[in-house]
């Protein structure tokens, strides 16, 4: 199975681990991530202005590239995933944006949201299946108590992302279970980490991450996993007393599949 792959800028520097382990694991699990040619930054934030198309064009190019290859488009970063899925929805359902973007890009064939965007976790759940994944685990993470920190970008708006129930998600808990570890459900798992406010007003993300750590630690988690480089950044910057280690989910996946050694 071959997928078009959109890594995004952060995965090329700060979050290189997220990318590296994902590729390794994909190989073991029997699918290929084919990086899109000359992809450009998604912008990092979905542009809410309804009369604005310039900031959506890079996403449309990536989506169209996948379409031309006849492949589904896989992402890892929560922000890229969020932007691509929402722009794709615009291209499919908002004729004004779709028409103007197509007029501008003048593609051979207009792009109308045909590409299916999948998060890496969705591939694991819907294509591979967590039961199958569990069978391939050679180094089960037995005894580890892991809290799944979803953040908000990967879940909301639920109707467009269709990733999981935004109030009560379970995909990452199922993932943790497949790796042989014990998921710790904590109420702040789908709350915002403060996102970009940390660049301007560190106080907010300090407050938010403290709540996240107090809650996850309080309910007995030894570590957190995330799919989002920005969440990772804010959680790492946290000065909370209750702080516990945070990993990208792909790193633990690689560890469970026995692919971590030799790379790190």
């Amino acid at each position, binding site marked *: 199975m071959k997928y078009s792959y959109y890594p995004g800028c952060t995965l090329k520097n700060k979050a290189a681990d997220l990318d590296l382990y994902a590729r390794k694991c994909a190989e073991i699990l029997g699918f290929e991530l084919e990086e899109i040619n000359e992809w450009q930054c998604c912008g990092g934030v979905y542009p809410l202005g309804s009369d604005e198309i310039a900031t959506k064009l890079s996403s449309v190019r990536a989506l169209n590239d996948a379409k031309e290859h006849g492949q589904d488009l896989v992402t890892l970063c929560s922000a890229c995933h969020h932007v691509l899925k929402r722009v794709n929805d615009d291209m499919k359902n908002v004729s004004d944006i779709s028409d103007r973007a197509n007029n501008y890009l003048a593609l051979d064939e207009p792009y109308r949201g045909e590409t299916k965007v999948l998060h890496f976790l969705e591939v694991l759940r819907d294509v591979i299946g967590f039961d199958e994944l569990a069978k391939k685990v050679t180094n089960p993470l037995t005894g580890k108590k892991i809290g799944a920190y979803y953040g908000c970008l990967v879940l909301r708006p639920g109707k467009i992302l269709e990733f999981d*129930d*935004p*109030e*009560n998600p379970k995909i990452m808990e199922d993932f943790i279970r497949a790796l042989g570890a014990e998921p710790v*459900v904590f*109420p*702040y798992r789908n*709350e915002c980490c403060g996102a970009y406010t940390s660049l301007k007003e560190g106080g907010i993300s300090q407050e938010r991450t403290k709540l996240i750590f*107090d*809650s996850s*630690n*309080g*309910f007995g988690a030894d570590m957190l996993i995330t799919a989002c480089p920005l969440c990772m950044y804010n959680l790492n910057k946290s000065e909370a007393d209750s702080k516990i280690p945070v990993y990208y989910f792909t790193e633990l996946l690689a560890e469970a599949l026995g692919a971590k050694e030799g790379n790190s």
Partner: protein
Amino acid sequence: MQRIGVFVCHCGTNIAATVDVKKVVELVRFEPGVVFADDYMYMCSEAGQEKIGEAIKEHGLTGLVICSCSPRMHEKTFRACAEKAGLNPYMVEIANIREQCSWIHKDREEATEKAVILARAAIAKVNLNAPLQEGESPVTKRALVIGGGIAGIQTALDIADAGYQVDIVEREPSIGGRMSQFDKTFPTLDCASCILTPKMVEVNQHPNITLYTYSEVEGVSGYVGNFDVQIRKKARSVDMAACTGCGECQAKCPLGKSGKIPSEFDRGLRGRSAIYMPFAQAVPAVPVIDRENCTYFKTGKCGICAKICPSKAVNYEQEDEIVTVKYGAIVVATGFDIINLDKYGEYAYNESPDVITSIELERLMNASGPTGGHLERMSDHKQPKDIVFIQCVGSRCDDERGKPYCSKVCCMYTAKHAMLIKDHWPDTNITVFYIDVRTPGKNFDEFYRRAVEQYHVNYVKGQVGKVIPQPDGSLMVQAVDMLDNKQIMKKTDMVVLAAAIEPNKGVRKIATMLTASIDNNDFLTEAHAKLRPVESPTAGIFLSGMAQGPKDIPETVSQAGAAAVKVVGLLAKDKLKTNPCTAKCDPMFCNGCSTCANVCPYGAITYEDQLVRGPGVNETRRVAVVNNALCQGCGACTTSCPSGAMDLQGFSNRQITTEVDSICR
């Protein structure tokens, strides 16, 4: 050729504001067959009807077209009016120029043109109308009430007191419904059991009432006055006649103490035995065995209840029994439940045992409930010092998780809960988060104000965003105070959710069996929202209680009485007039292929050998025969008949094609 009179109604401004009524009169005057046309402000009024009567006599009219509202509204009125003036009522046609024209169009010119077209179609049809005679059918003087909650109980009692036989079919082992779970009732705070249980006993002892508990309606056939209903009496595994209701069996059932089987009656707050009565005051006081959970039925071992039963009433061999009973009328009183809260993950209902629904709180406050009426947290059995109530959980909701309507009773029962708690434990701190407080009803707003002013319950206008269980076992409530424009983080011990009300599961199945219509929310629809609020559009089906829409106990009891009166009105008749618009087979064209019988939903078509004589035909062959008492005039046979032998009287193929032709002209 008919002599047709056309009467165009203004309906005040309802029609006249959008349709140029005078112009319609002018234009239809020259249609074939029309000898008279006139308009009037309110055709349905006495003066309007007199006008029609006079015109019939003066102009010797043989057919009428009334351009007015929907036939569902006034077809009966105008047919009666025609009959009074000596015309066959089936020579009247209605052109609906209100609901299907003036109300839905804005442009006066277009609406007028459409009104003329609709009138023209009706005129074309009347030209082919023939007088039809109504038949008669007998009435079975027995009523069925589906559902044994307070709505069904009251309806049954009222019918029975009027001297008619009534059967109640209740799915659960006991009658009593939701009300039997409640602690106190608003706004008087009298105890629910104290006012309900005497009625339950009365039902049980009434000579005119037969109870079918632990039973379900399995199939319905027939029509108004003559329903045949199949009732499945599920195997109770206990002999009703022999059992004395001593309760020994459930006391000794080994599963009783295990807590493995959640008690439906206590909303899962405690366990019950496998042989059980839902509650101590159950009517009938005869337990049932829950075969899915009973050890004897699962493994063949145990059998303790049978061994210890002093009256040898336990019978493991009992089987479901199906009885068929004839009824003249059916009342649907299937009640309600609260919505499933799985989609409301933000309130942590599934995560925390201290987040409960209002019905669970009723059980916790009830002296016969799992805690003996002592309010405590299910997690640590400590008495909560701080309680948060969240209103409108799923009510007045604009997405698909919840319901668009107001559940109507939550504001009042929450005020009730708050006051009852404050009465028992005055130092409890209570906060209610609301969107609006809605308390219309006699003595209702006074009741709510008492909660605020005398009991100092803290009402906060604003919705709760999230309930966050804390590692220390408390709950953090994240909310907004809209009047103060502030975010609130509030620590509390217990959260009570006023979950939206929805019709009981299974009402869809029952509505389908009865061909009674339901709305988008699965509430049963009334025949007319204002004028026929307790009748279903399907003749002979009546509505009582929450099955028709959210309502409180006083309203439910009033509606139950109203439904009973309608039923009694029907059962008091010896004969009913039958609709003459039934299918008819022309034996000349029928070749007995059975297509019509296969599509007939009422089993009204049979076949017999008939001598068919006509041009070039003289033979005895199998042809279709319609039973006019069973036929409901749906027309399925006429559209499926390959040779065109079947025709619907009053809506013949020729009449309908003529209507279409005149519209397309």
